[in-house]
């Protein structure tokens, strides 16, 4: 066999193994969510259920007030609101800041950039108690706005990093041409840089949304009722309460995973193009 053919077969086998490793746990969760409870706990486990049971989805979609379903649906809405709010604020603030890092020369530029990136090293636990007191005095405990406020502090450094890296890859001449035509710097940012940086922007939006959707510790400490509780908190609560009903936890988990999974699948080609590495380093 030719070496190239042998290599190609090897690569395909390896890719198949990786794909199976990625899919198996998810498939089990999908199966569990529609397997009748009795079948799910029989030993030995029957992998393919003889009957499908959609009752968990009905519970989640239809459950009345004070039920698992009501909590889940409220949490879903809260997660959406917090995620979208965080994305909007951190993108506006991040685009302006990233432009400054990518294009302007100013004193302490490197120090300021490192300070922003350095906030990533702080564990959330080190900020929880004072933030609790701040949110409490501002009346923002247990509100969506309060979560957007604290989530932005986690997301903005990432947005700054992705975008300033990306802006630096855009040739400066493009912008200079526009400025010779009389556009201001901000005008050039909006009409020249932003359209040219679309892959970076899409990647930043995706990362920002996924980070906010995934955030757990702030939501755990700063929310307690359906008014602002997000999906991760709701899921961890009902995974704790319904320990024996893995099917219900699976159904809820799958629904909670749906928005980020859909976003990641649609925009996956921007993930890599958004991460131009090596240009910003500490």
């Amino acid at each position, binding site marked *: 066999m030719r070496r190239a053919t042998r*290599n*190609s077969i090897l690569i*395909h086998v390896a*890719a198949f193994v990786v*794909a199976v490793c*990625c899919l198996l*746990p*998810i498939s*089990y969760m999908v199966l569990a969510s529609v397997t009748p409870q009795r079948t799910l706990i029989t*030993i*030995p*486990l029957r992998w393919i259920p003889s009957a499908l049971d959609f009752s968990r989805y009905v519970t989640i979609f239809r459950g009345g007030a004070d039920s698992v379903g009501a909590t889940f649906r409220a949490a879903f809405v809260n997660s959406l609101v917090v995620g979208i709010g965080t994305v909007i*604020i951190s993108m506006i603030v991040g685009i*302006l*800041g990233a432009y*400054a890092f990518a294009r*302007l*020369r*100013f004193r302490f*530029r*490197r120090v300021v950039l490192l300070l*922003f990136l350095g*906030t*990533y*090293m*702080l*564990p*959330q*636990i*080190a*900020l929880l*108690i*004072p933030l609790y007191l*701040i949110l409490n005095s501002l009346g923002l405990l247990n509100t969506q706005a309060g979560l957007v406020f604290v989530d932005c*502090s986690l997301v*903005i450094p990432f947005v*700054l990093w992705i975008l300033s890296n990306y802006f630096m890859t855009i040739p400066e001449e493009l912008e200079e041409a526009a400025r010779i035509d009389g556009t201001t710097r901000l005008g050039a940012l909006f009409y020249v840089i932003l359209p040219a940086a679309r892959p970076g922007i899409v990647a930043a939006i995706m990362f920002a949304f*996924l980070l906010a959707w*995934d955030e*757990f*510790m702030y939501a755990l400490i700063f929310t307690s009722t359906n008014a602002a509780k997000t*999906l*991760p908190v709701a*899921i961890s609560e009902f*995974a704790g309460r319904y320990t024996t009903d*893995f099917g219900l936890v699976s159904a809820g*988990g799958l629904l*909670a*995973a749906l928005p*980020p*999974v859909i976003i990641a*699948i649609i925009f*996956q080609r921007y*993930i*890599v193009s958004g*991460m131009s*590495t*090596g240009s910003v*380093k*500490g």
Partner: protein
Amino acid sequence: MTVASLNGSKEGAPEKRSLPRRGKRDRQGRLAFWLLLPAGVAVFGVVLYPIARTILVSLFQVNSALATDTPFVGLGNYVEVLQDPEFWNSLWRTLYFTVVSTALELVLGLIVAGLLNAKLRWRWLFRTIVVLPWAIPTIVNAAMWKGIYNAQYGALNAALTQLGVIHEYKAWLGEPMSALNAVIIADVWKTTPLVAFFLLAGLTAIPSELYEAARIDRAGWPRMLRSIVLPLLVPSISIVLVLRTVEAFKVFDIIYAMTRGGPINGTATIAYFAYIRAFSDQNFGVGSALAIIIVLVILVLTTIYLRFLRRSDMSLL
């Protein structure tokens, strides 16, 4: 690679205000200030003041959220923490978690990145599948693996017994060491795709002429890996290494959702330990001291890294 580009501030001394025309730099500086102000307020307002306050709290004895009598104890909380054997256990456990998960993610991430970059039939399908674990929220991932590891009905027990690998069901999350490794596997499963995409970004930046040249020289893939791919990937690998180490050292959510630190504290990482001290025991002074110790350890780790990486960077130039 372009560390120099970050040093824009070096050239030229600040111009004196008495000069008739202000320099270009000065104008850019002012614009930069206004552009960065919103980000600065949003990030540092939620970080700098709280961290200062946490340092302060760590010097007092605060035994409940509503305590009014909070005596100053100086470094007493730190002494208490450092004398607590459970602190040292949680520190070693966290280091184990960090080293093992980061190492696995890097090695597996490199392999997956190579596959993503290779000539594959159905490449788009492979990419889509690899993206999935990364997109699944951490808490959902934790709940899923908790189900897989379940001692009675879990898929792992079922699969392993049906394949004849084990003969009786095991409580994977029932013993400290096996629980810690089980959590690591769940974490690696979710995070490897992100590492892979990160490294892929570095891989695609390698000019294809280099591979061509190597092919003409009839170099095999081990040789290509050693002399082209790995050296040129050093910047990407080092960023991933720093990011993943810091993240792993702070790990909390997956622990909370999968094991709540159990069994017998077997998976209580240092961040989880700090959380318990502060919020379950309502000992905010000690909890804050622990949090500050985490910050210090992370600082030490990243300093070591940066020093080491800068040296390895030099060898590249």
